[in-house]
């Protein structure tokens, strides 16, 4: 077990690709840490540098305060679970799990005991003599996790370990991995492009984009206080709606244009209007409400704009309505006791308490939504995936 510190890490591939830019972060001892980002964001590069599979172009990596840049994966005592093709296909599960111990020259009795222990922990005892080709994807990943845990690593690196599994299995392994990590207390880093995985499993996480660290914090912090529009949009069950509002005027009520449509704006946003009369708003789908056109009167603390239903999707206990406003669309998550037909004219409403404001130029957050979810309007987010 170890704490891990990255200091000003840069990674260049050749002279053209700057994959990781000046990343600094600290992972506490025993923490389950997530690296989240879209593909090409540099998160996997960071993990591979932690593991010692690649070296950083500049910067330093410390395990418990000791630099490890010159150390091999073995010397760092890293374990890793790969996305796929992780198990040696010509070996049985038992041989796979015991391989790292065999390399270390442990006695056969010792190896057998450890393999049995970890196999029991991961419920794979019945698979122990099968080869990779005789196991399902989920079983293979379990064996790969067992192989990683069998030698008490300083740091467990998980490279999208469950991304290739089907939805149900993914949800189950998510929980299992989290419990396992808690009970073992092994410092773990998981790389994922799935916000749900990052949110549900980790203690803290870092959001990356284009090699740049965007934000580090707990899932709740990042969800409720995203530093910029990208993080707000990327992080969450449903992507946040970004609404670029132009020509904001006060006559006397605050109004502007979104998608060419006249938009009533909450008075509270007046201080946030930029010098060129623009507003970049963010609102999570759960913060938006959809009403039949004309049903709701514009009020001074609500955003309201006219559009028509593009499509409405049943999600079981709620309804995801996509509304077209000019060339733009927004999505609203509402109780499913309402029905909307395609192309039906509707009003989209949002309480000012659910609105984020971003700088139209830098995309940085100017105003956090006082409430992430507006009770009475949308449903609290439920985990579907």
């Amino acid at each position, binding site marked *: 077990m170890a704490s891990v510190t990255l200091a000003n890490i840069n990674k260049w591939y050749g002279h053209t690709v700057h994959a990781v830019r000046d990343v600094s972060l600290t992972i506490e001892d025993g923490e389950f840490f997530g690296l989240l980002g879209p593909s090409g964001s540099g998160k996997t590069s960071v993990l591979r540098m932690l593991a010692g*599979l690649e070296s950083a172009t500049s910067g330093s990596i410390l395990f418990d305060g000791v630099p490890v840049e010159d150390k091999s994966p*073995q010397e760092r005592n*890293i*374990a890793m679970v*790969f996305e796929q093709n992780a198990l*040696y*296909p010509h070996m049985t599960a038992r041989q796979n799990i015991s391989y790292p111990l065999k*390399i270390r020259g442990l006695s056969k009795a010792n190896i057998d005991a450890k393999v049995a222990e970890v196999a029991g922990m991961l419920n794979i005892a019945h698979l122990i003599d099968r080869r990779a080709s005789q196991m399902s994807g989920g079983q293979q990943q379990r064996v790969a996790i067992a192989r990683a845990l069998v030698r008490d690593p300083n740091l467990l690196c998980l490279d999208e370990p469950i991304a290739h599994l089907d939805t149900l299995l993914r949800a189950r392994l998510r929980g299992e991995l989290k419990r396992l990590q808690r009970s073992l207390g092994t410092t773990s880093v998981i790389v994922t492009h799935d916000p749900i995985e990052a949110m549900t499993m980790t203690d803290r996480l870092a959001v990356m984009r284009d090699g740049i660290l965007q934000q580090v914090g707990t899932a709740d912090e990042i969800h409720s206080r995203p530093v910029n529009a990208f993080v707000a949009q990327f992080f969450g069950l449903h992507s946040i709606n970004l609404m670029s509002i132009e020509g904001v005027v006060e006559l006397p009520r605050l109004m502007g244009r979104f998608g060419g449509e006249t938009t009533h704006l909450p008075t509270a946003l007046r201080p946030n209007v930029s010098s060129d009369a623009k507003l970049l708003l963010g609102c999570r789908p759960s913060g938006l409400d959809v009403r039949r056109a004309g049903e709701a009167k514009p009020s001074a603390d609500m955003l309201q704009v006219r559009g028509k239903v593009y499509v409405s999707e049943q999600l079981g206990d709620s309804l995801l309505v996509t509304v077209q406003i000019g060339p733009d669309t927004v999505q609203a998550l509402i109780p499913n006791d309402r029905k909307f037909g395609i192309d039906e004219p509707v009003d989209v409403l949002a309480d000012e308490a659910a609105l984020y404001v971003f700088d139209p130029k830098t995309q940085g957050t100017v105003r956090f939504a006082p409430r992430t979810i507006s009770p009475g309007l949308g449903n609290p987010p439920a985990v579907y995936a």
Partner: protein
Amino acid sequence: MSPIPASHPPADRASFGEILREVLKHVVMVALLLLFLCPLLWLLLTAFKPYAELFNSPPSVLPVNGTLANFTEGWTVGGGKGIGDSLIVASLSTAICLVLGFPAAYALARRFPPHGQLSFTILSLRMMPPIVPVIGFYLLFQELSLFDTYTGLIIIYTFMNLPLVIWLLSEFIRQIPKSYEEAARIDGAPWYRLFWDVLLPLSAPGVLTAGILSMIFAWNEFLFALVLTGENVITLPKALASFFLFQQPNWGQLGAIGIAAVGPLLIISYYMQRSLIRSFSIELGGR
């Protein structure tokens, strides 16, 4: 109308055109097979005929007085020595090719772009007609006292087969996902264990294919053996050719030795065809 059982959908009845096409296909196939198999068959039959029977008129197709004498005599008049020498030269050169070729192939696969200059250069060595360097080798071998030695011929066959072995193996290794190697590095395997425990087992079909091809080429090679060896080393193709030197060859013995030369190749190819095809169409899927 009787109901159709669900598990047996009615087979489409073949149209006359389809039947005709099938028949034509088979006729052509059989004709081609006969064309290729006839000499082999004749060789086989000749090997079992006594000398006198070979000149029967009209010729008998099947041996009338079948005999194994051709095999025993063939063994003593050069066949035995030929088989032994060919085995020594082919197997040792193949072993060297694999030992040298595997690391080279690994480096080529992992450190160089596919279908790059280096890969092409290596393979192009194999494309050179052997007649081009043979005179140079003759002079060189005379100077180095390698003429008419096993060592000399083994070196030549290694030179001849190494490019193909490297190329085949590198294409094969390229198909092995890197994550296996990375997993082994993470597991703490030093390079020799990475090679022995992970890479070699995963590339076994490729190694087998490269080995067999290298073996076959060395086994069949005639030109280098003819020019670069004399009385001391006599490989099978050279032993066969020596029958044609001074007198009417003993066709029966020739047939017997010919079968010894062709037989192992046929058997290997038959049993290995699946693995050979898979290595050539290089696909690791489904393992």
